[in-house]
């Protein structure tokens, strides 16, 4: 034991010395003249492919992109506790509810940019410019092709119909994707009707919610239920998977865009988006960065990498999404359903939808 310790001691000392000497902090450049230095991005998007976006921005403008990736709520907490001196320039997250929450917390500053305002459709950005959607995902109904005739499907509301008793799969109410969807229902139908709807949904569930969207899709394939509520890119991922089992699963389910009939409001879409932080030390870089994200080049990269719909009109989606067919989207502003998230969570829990 002693000899072991003696052997370890110098090694330990060397590593300690290395820790002390070692300086891992990249220098965070303070606000300088326009488009020099850096932009500090706090991102809740975890995709490796986003690095290609950041590199694209750097090579176009010479501005270095510093990134911290984390979960959105924790990033928000960090910006809040860092206060006026926070190095954060931009916060990027993947749900309108979270964007709204960040706005409520007062960390965004309004941005006025003609580029952003013309490139991004009005309902995908916050009216005062606190945040901007850069990509969309639609929340669709996936059905078992061999058991369900899509003609039986129509709207989100209809999922609560007793005809689907024991057939419906959806993830937990604790997830923002569901909170945003239900937030849009509250806006469309009112609180009481939505509460009734949530009860109907809870009664129709094939099982107590478990797993993510992908798990609901797979549960349709394995026969636990017939219908699943999911974001589009999860279906796209299955269909483009390298694993044959997953590919087959992706083909066994059909995609139905709800609320498409004339007079209906359209399918619920949620956004990935970002805004400029109030205390941003590199404000101009931050705006330029957001503007870059809406360029054709960046939108194309986004669409191909994460199977999201580009926010900018006219940029083609990934073929696997195009295959799902054209659809009309609910143009309710993301801020509205985002701000309903907490109520939505409560409504679902009241109905016993965990």
């Amino acid at each position: 034991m002693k000899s072991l310790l003696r052997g370890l001691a110098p090694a330990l000392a060397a590593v300690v010395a290395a820790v002390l000497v070692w300086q891992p902090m990249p220098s965070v450049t303070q606000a300088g003249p326009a488009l020099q230095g850096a932009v500090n991005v706090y991102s809740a998007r975890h995709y490796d492919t986003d690095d290609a976006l950041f590199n694209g921005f750097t090579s176009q403008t010479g501005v270095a992109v510093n990134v911290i990736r984390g979960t959105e709520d924790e990033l928000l907490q960090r910006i809040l506790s860092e206060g006026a001196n926070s190095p954060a320039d931009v916060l990027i997250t993947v749900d309108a509810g979270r964007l709204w929450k960040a706005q409520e917390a007062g960390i965004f500053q309004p941005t006025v940019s003609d580029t952003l305002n013309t490139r991004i459709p009005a309902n995908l950005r916050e009216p005062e410019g606190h945040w901007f959607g850069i990509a969309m995902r639609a929340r669709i109904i996936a059905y078992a092709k061999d058991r369900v005739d899509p003609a039986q499907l129509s709207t989100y509301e209809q999922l609560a119909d007793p005809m689907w008793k024991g057939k419906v799969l959806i993830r937990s109410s604790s997830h923002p994707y569901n909170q945003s969807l239900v937030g849009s229902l509250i806006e469309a139908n009112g609180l009481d009707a939505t509460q009734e709807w949530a009860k109907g949904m809870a009664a129709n569930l094939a099982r107590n919610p478990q797993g993510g969207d992908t798990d609901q899709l797979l549960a349709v394939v394995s026969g636990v239920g017939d219908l699943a509520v999911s974001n589009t890119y999860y279906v796209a991922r299955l269909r483009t998977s390298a694993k044959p089992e997953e590919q087959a699963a992706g083909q066994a389910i059909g995609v139905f865009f709800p609320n498409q009939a004339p007079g209906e409001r359209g399918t619920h879409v949620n956004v990935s988006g970002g805004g400029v932080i109030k205390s941003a030390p590199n404000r101009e870089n931050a705006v330029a960065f957001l503007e870059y994200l809406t360029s054709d080049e960046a939108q194309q990269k986004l669409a191909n990498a994460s199977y999201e719909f580009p926010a900018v009109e006219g940029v083609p989606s990934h073929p696997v999404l195009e295959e799902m067919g054209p659809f009309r989207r609910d143009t309710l502003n993301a801020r509205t359903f985002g701000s309903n998230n907490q109520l939505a969570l409560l409504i679902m829990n009241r109905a016993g939808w965990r």
Partner: protein
Amino acid sequence: MRVEDLPVSPPRLLNGGTRLIPSRSALLLPWAGLLLALVVSIPVLTVLRSLAVPADGLWLELLALTLPRYLANTAVLLAGVGLGTLLVGVSAAWLVTVCRFPGSRSFEWALILPMAMPAYLLAYTYGDLLQYPGPVQAALRSWLGLSRGSSWFPEIRSLGGAIVVMTAVLYPYVYLLARAAFLEQSVVSLEASRTLGRGPWRSFLAVALPLARPSIVAGLALVMMEALADFGTVKHFEVDTFTTGIYLSWFGMGSPIGAAKLAAGLLLFVLAVIGLERLSRGKRRYHQTTARYRPPTPFRLGGWRASAAIVVCTVPILVGFVVPAVRLLDLAVVAGDQRFGAAFVGLARNSMLLAVGASVVAAGLALVVAYGLRLVPSRLMRLTAWLSTLGYTVPGSVIAVGVLLPFGALDNAVDGWMRATFGISTGLLLSGTIFALLFAYVVRFLALSFNSVESGLGRITPNMDGAARTLGQGPLGVLRRVHLPLVRGSLLTGALLVFVDTLKELPATLIVRPFNFDTLAVRVYLLASDERLSEAATAALTIVAVGIVPVVVLSLAIARSHPTQVAT
């Protein structure tokens, strides 16, 4: 070397309550200990403070709707994991310590291997292996010729699945401590029991088990705290536990205060359980009453008994280490991380340096606080030391917020003062630095090193301090010349535990780290949370590989920790 009494144990008074009155200059050390312990307690106090802030109505309604379920799930989870780790840990420890059967020597160290596996990694791996399109179900379907549509397979993403996964990675704590306790028991007591007519089973139950009870309970308490603080596994399996409630309050209802309230409730619960156990032990004390030590003559097992012993020891290693490691290796080889290479050296370096840094700092801090407590075993000192170790029961994200808030406040206060006084902006000095991150680790894991050092010091008789002081050494001299050599083993054990846990730590790392600063655990999380397990496998395996080294060192050290070889 022992790892006894790892979790929060109220520091014990020196034997006979001897109080060594330190000289004036030496008062510095207890004061330093007090101050450091206070600083480390800040995040936990930040969390506890939230209890005083009133909650809003929406949050209360949600709580009323969901809390019963969270509590029920948490209770089942704790009971299941507690029972599982107890059964696996104690029986394996007993078998390898007291019995000899083919492979028993190798099992001694191999049983610790699952410690190198982060629980969330096991959850990802088994979730992937056992899910519907995963290899196991696919193979079964093709063998049995089942058609798509049969859903008879038990769901891994469930409370039961979480219990199995956590038991598989956490039993080594019970195993380690139980084994250390069994090793210390002289065979004399067991022989006396056998002579008095008890069979091997009765001897185990009536003599060995009660003697080892404090250690086993200590291990179990560690397991419970880990299970309570876990978020990765329950999140991945979508099991609602108390931790889920903390997250939902915070993120779903936007109420960090509500989250902190729940966390504070969690703390109180843990304290109550530990208190109950102490109460139930009452005034009973189990001591080795004889100084005669003879290494146990092992029971030689043969035939079906040997086979059964092998099975008991093999299954936990298979479930907790071999199967996931092989699966990860397979994934890594077939697909793997495209960034493997130069970038990985950086990741591994970051991980290693953080882990080494945290373990060294925690060990040093533990030594100062524990020795300060030994010199001045006052109530204040004890309370502060105990507060400083509470971070171990709190989920990493909550600790992270507990760290972010005071650091941000301090940085901004310094900045404000500097601006007002000198017109200079100092910006954020500590927030978002390696220092803040190391601090978070120390807050979270100090319990591991402190309790280890403290129990090590506790075994040194105060007579030795007295003798050394009489011979002209100051308190620091005593520490350096007498105590340090004696507690080196405990110090190392504590440091190793902190090292392994830091390497695996995720939530605090994710949120407190500096820009562009990735570690292996972060890499695993970013890929795996995006359901890209094959790519995450490479970084995951690297964590396991790096974690194995200290685990093996630890097991070697323990194997040599026979009382005859311990300098005490």
